[in-house]
């Protein structure tokens, strides 16, 4: 092989940046695109909310209707994510450990909420659970009202979050060595006991990550909720909907203030998820 220039050989050995060309070009382009599309608009949001004066900001943020909206968003998102944490583990378990007819259909179906437009999910869920539909009327006769109640919001947020827990637990479960389970079985542990004591602890980081991702997604969800919630102020009005309502009344300052609170919450969550994933990686290693 011909002699490489000394400079390039040194870089080959060092491999700090990687030897392949295009670092400057891709870095420049990526930074330009991210800056234009993400940083600049976020800066506008922060700038706008900082120019409206502290007292107006505090008033908008701590308004009773706004407080009720945050609380409702928080509660329903938590409930949806909790339901998904439980059933998501069952679904992931079944998809990884068993073979049965229709398995690959079920596996493909899990991603539906990720691909289906939220507005379509919204009207479909409303159609399923409204009082004059078959399921809705059955539930009504049992005195359970879903559409246009807080329960309906939980149903929509559960739908939205399904892929998150399943898809984070699935790969971890696939990688999980079964020798520890065998050891537990040989030592006389039943299957249920093995699951609680041996398997669940090693799945916990993945479950928590999936739970947090589903929660974060549910917190900001709008499209699927507006149809099923009925949007009654102080009762079934989630925070993203309140932002839209304020915008429709041309109350830009109020909308921005609430958006700032929500955005701060999502960033804190994102930070928490990052820590969780670091922990999960360490647990795997």
């Amino acid at each position, binding site marked *: 092989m011909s002699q490489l220039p000394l400079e390039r050989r040194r870089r080959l050995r060092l491999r700090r940046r990687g030897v392949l060309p295009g670092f400057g070009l891709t870095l420049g382009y990526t930074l330009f695109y991210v800056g234009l599309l*993400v940083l600049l608009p976020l800066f506008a949001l922060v700038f706008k909310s900082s120019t409206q004066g502290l007292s107006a900001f505090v008033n908008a943020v701590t308004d009773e209707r706004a407080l009720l909206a945050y609380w409702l968003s928080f509660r329903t998102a938590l409930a949806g994510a909790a339901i998904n944490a439980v059933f998501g583990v069952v679904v992931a378990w079944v998809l990884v450990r068993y073979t049965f007819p229709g398995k690959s259909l079920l596996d493909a179906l899990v991603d539906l909420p990720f*691909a289906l*437009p939220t*507005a379509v999910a919204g009207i479909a869920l409303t159609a399923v659970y409204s009082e004059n539909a078959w399921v809705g009327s059955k539930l009504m006769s049992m005195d359970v009202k879903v559409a246009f109640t807080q329960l309906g919001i939980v149903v929509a947020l559960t739908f939205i979050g399904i892929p998150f827990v399943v898809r984070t637990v699935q*790969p971890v479960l696939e990688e999980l060595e079964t020798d520890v389970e065998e050891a537990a*079985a040989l030592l006389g542990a039943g*299957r249920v006991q093995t699951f609680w004591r041996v398997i669940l602890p090693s799945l916990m980081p993945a479950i928590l990550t999936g739970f947090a991702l589903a929660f974060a997604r549910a917190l900001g969800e709008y499209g699927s909720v507006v149809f099923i919630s009925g949007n009654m102020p102080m009762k079934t009005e989630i925070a993203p909907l309140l*932002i839209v309502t304020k915008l429709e009344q041309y109350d*830009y300052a109020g909308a921005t203030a609430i958006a700032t609170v929500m*955005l701060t919450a999502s960033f804190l969550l994102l930070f928490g998820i990052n820590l969780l994933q670091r922990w999960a990686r360490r647990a795997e290693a």
Partner: protein
Amino acid sequence: MSGVVGQRARRFPVKRRSQVAVEGPWLRALLIGVAAAFLGVALLLPLSVVFASAFSKGIGPFWAALTEPETWSAIQLTLLTAGISVPLNAVFGIAAAWLVSRYDFWGKSALITLIDLPFSVSPVIAGLIFVLLFGAQGLWGPWLSEHDIKIIFAVPGIVIATTFVTFPLVAREVLAVMQAQGSDEEEAALTLGASGWQIVTRITLPKVRWGLIYGVILSNARAMGEFGAVSVVSGHIRGQTNTMPLHVEILYNEYNFVGAFAVAALLASLSLVTLLVKKSVELNAELNARRMAKASSVARSSLVPSSSLAGAALSARPNESRA
């Protein structure tokens, strides 16, 4: 119970999937039943309701609803929006994935977080930030109106908001594949004298094509179906700034259920196609991996992209580069 376990354990050597640590048939059936019932009620039921409602009055009204001029203009606007934002995000996705998977540099994890950021921003807030930037009361609003440029409540705003909401999708899919495959071939090509452009078009793009295809399809489905962000910036002008999901809302609120579900069925079909593509990409990757493993006696574990593809859509954030 322990007696059975002991008996089975004596039959060494144990096969790969041991018979010791398995559930009884009843528990197994119960778990499968719970999983199927959950997904059936939560996913299959609403999905089938969309199609059932769309065709509830037969194929005639369904077709009539789709060929209505306002619906048609919504379809055209949706196609235009996706036609602009998807290619933009695809080019960005390839560049960003190349950058993150091939080089180590200061601030890399911060950059990855920034790329993922639109996923954690509520769609409504995504719309709002562009209103604050380009709207009449916005930062650049006065300048824009002076020059008679309309972005908010017009098509450009819809395109920008859609691009923002969907922009990590291609990058994530391609990045997952690039990281799993490593850059040995590219480095070999470099030492043989290939130029950067040659490396990208002849080696990298063919290598990551399945991830790229799925990323583009998913990004397209999300671009066409985006509701919250577009709803905030569009202004809902019928026949002008109404995308398909917004048109679904308008028809639904007018109690035109057949019309609303007809458009919804069209969007739902698109998402089913997306799932189908994902499944075939996964199968393809699995086949490739098996072929590779057979072909080379030196099996490299990093070449098996099945889990990386399967989970790439949502799962773990890209790890540090393995290069």
